[in-house]
């Protein structure tokens, strides 16, 4: 069986303008300032919790918003039919360092609960699940670089076994101020059309190169 990438969202630091990120989706391409409030305004979502999140979760939420904007997944699938398989290289390292700062100094020793709750490598996946009510199979891989074959194999297997009928798949990395995100919406589309991208490791790689 083959499955299709029905939507995608790619976010990365712009190579020319260091204070901007380039956001590409299947229909749009934008250059936006890296400020989190700017990214938020641009997706016009009403989700104040966003501002309490750590950086990697914020980028995950923004990318998921671009990915799923304007479609009603719940009309097509139940909560447990939607899976999520994400990956990154640094886990929550950026946030781990932030928390460490709050317990580093004996005089100024105030461990922050709001930061501690984000010191989990797969927390970005949790935040996307909470926002979009995704309750199906979930997996978060840590690897040095995106492993397109693993993503293709793992997700296809979930589809083949009828564990899921739809999946959010990708790479959500953030370290040293640099976001590197690729999210894909993978579905089992019966009617193939020319605009659809087949869900293969090659296609994952070419979208990652965007």
């Amino acid at each position, binding site marked *: 069986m083959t499955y299709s990438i029905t939507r995608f969202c790619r976010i990365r630091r712009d190579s020319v303008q260091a204070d901007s990120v380039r956001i590409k989706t299947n229909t749009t391409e934008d250059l936006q300032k890296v400020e989190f409030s700017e990214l938020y305004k641009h997706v016009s979502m009403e989700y*104040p919790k966003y*501002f309490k999140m750590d950086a990697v979760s914020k980028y995950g939420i923004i990318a998921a918003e671009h990915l799923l904007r304007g479609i009603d997944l719940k009309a097509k699938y139940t909560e447990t039919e939607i899976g999520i398989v994400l990956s990154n290289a640094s886990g929550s390292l950026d946030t781990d360092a932030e928390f460490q700062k709050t317990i580093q100094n004996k005089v100024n020793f*105030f*461990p922050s*609960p*709001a930061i501690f709750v984000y010191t989990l490598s797969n927390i970005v996946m949790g935040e996307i699940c909470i926002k979009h009510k995704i309750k199906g199979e979930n997996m978060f891989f840590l690897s040095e670089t995106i492993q397109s074959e693993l993503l293709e194999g793992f997700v296809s297997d979930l589809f083949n076994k009828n564990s899921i009928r739809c999946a959010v798949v990708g790479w959500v990395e953030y370290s040293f101020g640099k976001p590197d995100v690729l999210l894909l919406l993978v579905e089992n589309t019966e009617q193939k059309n020319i605009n659809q991208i087949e869900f293969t490791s090659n296609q994952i790689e070419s979208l990652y190169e965007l």
Partner: protein
Amino acid sequence: MNQLITELKKEIIYQLNLQDITPESIKDDAPLFGEGLGLDSIDVLELIVLLQKKYGIKVNGAEEGKTVFFSVKSMAEYITAKQQQQQQQ
């Protein structure tokens, strides 16, 4: 007291990363949780840290926190009472 209330509103907005909320829009005695500003359990914990950090006041546990942090006014009253206690000691 009024000065403390204004100061607290600014601190809450800053500490809890509240967006599009001005100090003026927070009513002194409106509930901070649930219907009010929609704060959650982690926010209570951050407010406990705020009291420790800025006013040197220790709140014992999240349960006590719920009454202390009912509103900005209850927070200000708690701080004032604790500060008076400390001065007397």
